[in-house]
């Protein structure tokens, strides 16, 4: 799975996710990537999120929308909200994975509870930051 989230100079947020799914999948199985609110979500008032991992758990927890809701209704920061889902809720249910998020102020989060996640970010200074391992 691959994904991108951004906030532009006008303060607009957007999120995108794309995947091939799971190796050897059957019966038309899909995960969270194409499900708005589970694997992808964006709202100018809160955050843009793109998820990757064991899709069934992200669907059952509506991970992406829940992060937006925690920020909107509980005033969580983007770090608090994303950590809550990736390090508590998803593992507690038996799932694993990670996500990327950026809030309306340009604060970013890239939590994951697996061994690694291909990830990176770039801001107006033009300096790319790229990471792979934990």
């Amino acid at each position: 799975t691959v994904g991108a989230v951004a906030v532009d100079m006008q303060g607009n947020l957007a999120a995108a996710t794309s995947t091939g799914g799971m190796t050897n999948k059957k019966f038309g199985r899909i995960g969270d990537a194409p499900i708005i609110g589970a694997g992808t979500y964006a709202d100018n008032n809160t955050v843009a999120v793109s998820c990757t991992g064991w899709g069934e758990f992200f669907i059952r927890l509506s991970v992406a929308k829940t992060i937006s809701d925690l920020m909107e209704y509980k005033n969580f920061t983007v770090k608090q909200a994303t950590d809550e889902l990736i390090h508590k809720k998803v593992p507690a249910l038996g799932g694993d994975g990670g996500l990327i998020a950026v809030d309306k102020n340009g604060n970013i989060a890239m939590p994951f509870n697996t061994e690694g996640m291909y990830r990176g970010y770039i801001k107006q200074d033009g300096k790319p930051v790229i990471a792979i391992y934990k």
Partner: protein
Amino acid sequence: KKFSLVIHGGAGTILKKNMTPEKEKAYQQALNDALQAGYKILNSGGSALDAVEATVRVLEDCPLFNAGKGAVFTNEGKNELDASIMNGKNLAAGSVASVTTIRNPITAARAVMERSQHVMMVGAGAEKFAKQQGLEIVDPSYFYTEERWQGLLKVRAEDPDSVALDHGNKTKTTGMLKQPENRDYKYG
């Protein structure tokens, strides 16, 4: 002139000891290419929506990642691709699932968002819509990579009954939702 772009290329058991220096360099280069594609748009005042689409297209075209070219295979030996996109400005959203002939599924998701009244289209219908919208349609073999094909053959050889999730210690479980010991042996 403040803006931010964040990307991911998938999470899992990605360990340094399993990576060659050349492969790691290839991943770093690919991730940087994706960042630069989005940066170019944002730095010229372009929209976040254009930036995330352009960035994901770069990653879909790169065979290193499980999306577009280089996607994993289904049990039937196909590449069934899913994608979604969302515009934070108006909460518009678009998604496609189980498509096999659209070169860039993220662009199809955006077409669903902007050129239909729907949010989600799947399968043959999504492919028909994409073709009508003039998106690039390819032969399913476009997505094939030998590495992913071998990955399918390996999983099939190890666990013929791939519907049941095998949890690493080689004992079969029928409960799909049991807590796996080895979280990364989740196939099909």
